[in-house]
């Protein structure tokens, strides 16, 4: 069975890496729950529990806590949205707000690359944002229930950000196709191969933007935060898994040297917004160490998959990462069986497939 042939049950104590479980009843005698794996192009066809296309979200999830990775990425659970929320609105306010900010910026870049002046591109972008945050079915706007990150502050922040950087000295580069280098998808062999299937692990993801500044090339990313911008905030990105992967990827996928990453910090407040830009760099040795560490983490991932498939054991829990974790209420249950009930009550399934282009991740 390939990963494109519909839902598939993984093995749970039945032995053999590729054997399939025929029901979702708890595994005997360990009592663990069978893990349903949905088709996903970033996973191995030979071993559907093994992710081969690794992006920063997946890798970061595994580094945070193997169990978190299993629930959020492998199984694709996320908290259910509040009652009345449309399915296409993500329940995590910070995540949804950030997605719309990125999409708005990308849309604006697209309008500018079509030859529109700033004013018209801005108007069209805000028009898009108003529509994206409006649920036509119910005739109601997105209600985040959040005094800081909500529909109004989203549109306002987007407007202020685009106005502020309308004459940005960091110019978005044009790809050979003529399109602006925004949301640029990449994938390449990581240099590591699965011990279980012999397949290559790929590094993949989407680079927000590539810019030219003072005759040098930089990646550019945008982060919104409720926190005060400043040294404390920006230092939290060094070290940082996501940015190390991006800068590593930048060195691999482009024919020019990437100096580092320009981070546009956006502090969102109820009454306004602040913007600052910071350069983030990684030296050669840092990137080599990050890559070497990647190999170790991929080995741990394979160990965890092996335990799951051969012995029906859930991925190990990192109890030091439970603070404010979405799954704390699940992992606090006393047995794998009771965890399943908690998942089905409070969570919904959503597939994360980093090999798909932006906007196609929804499962």
């Amino acid at each position, binding site marked *: 069975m390939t990963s494109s042939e519909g839902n598939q049950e993984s093995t749970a104590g039945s032995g053999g890496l590729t054997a399939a479980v025929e029901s979702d009843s708890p595994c005997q005698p360990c009592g663990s729950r069978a893990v349903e794996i949905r088709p996903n192009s970033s996973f191995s066809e030979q071993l559907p529990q093994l992710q081969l296309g690794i992006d920063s979200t997946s890798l970061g999830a595994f580094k945070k806590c193997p169990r978190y990775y299993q629930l959020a990425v492998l199984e694709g659970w996320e908290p259910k949205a509040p009652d009345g929320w449309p399915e296409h609105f993500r329940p995590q306010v910070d995540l949804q707000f950030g997605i719309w900010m990125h999409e708005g910026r990308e849309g604006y870049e697209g309008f500018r690359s079509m030859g529109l002046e700033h004013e018209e591109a801005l108007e069209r972008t*805000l028009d898009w944002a108003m529509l994206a945050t409006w649920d036509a079915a119910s005739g109601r706007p997105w209600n985040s229930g959040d005094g800081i990150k909500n*529909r109004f502050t989203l549109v306002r922040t987007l407007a*202020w950000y685009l106005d502020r950087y309308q004459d940005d000295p960091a110019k978005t580069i044009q790809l050979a196709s003529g399109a602006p280098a925004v949301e640029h998808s990449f994938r390449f062999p990581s240099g590591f191969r699965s011990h279980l299937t012999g397949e290559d692990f790929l590094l993949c993801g989407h680079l927000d933007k590539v810019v030219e500044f*003072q005759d040098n090339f930089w990646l550019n990313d945008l982060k919104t935060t409720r926190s005060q911008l400043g040294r404390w905030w920006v230092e939290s990105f060094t070290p940082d898994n996501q940015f190390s992967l991006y800068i590593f990827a930048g060195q691999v996928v482009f024919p020019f040297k990437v100096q580092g990453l320009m981070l546009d910090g956006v502090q969102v407040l109820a009454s306004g917004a*602040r913007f*600052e*830009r910071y350069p983030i760099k990684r030296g050669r040795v840092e990137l080599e160490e990050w890559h070497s560490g990647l190999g170790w983490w991929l080995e741990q991932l394979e160990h965890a998959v092996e335990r799951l498939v051969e012995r029906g054991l859930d991925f190990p829990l990192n109890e030091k990462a439970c603070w404010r974790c979405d799954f704390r209420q699940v992992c606090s249950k006393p047995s794998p069986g009771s965890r399943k009930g908690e998942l089905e009550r409070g969570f919904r399934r959503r597939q994360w497939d980093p090999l798909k282009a932006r906007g196609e991740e929804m499962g």
Partner: protein
Amino acid sequence: MSDSGAPGVIPQSDALTQATTDSLAELFSRDPEGFQAQDRKRLVAALREQRTRWEAAEASGTTRRERTKLGEARKQSSELSAEELGL
């Protein structure tokens, strides 16, 4: 998106004079599917007016901005020298 006005007619706008908090609240309460060009201009103008007020408040210190030793980390890329960027 839809635009108002007949083709070839020079658009007239009183968007700036209408840019008030009230107009923002009214715009955000409406179904954006029905927005006209005038509404989009009012939206931009009202948000800019808010930004002007916010920046004035920031400059006067009334937004309680934390003024600590943030140093170079606050600089804009346009203010960064090539040397500071390690070039």
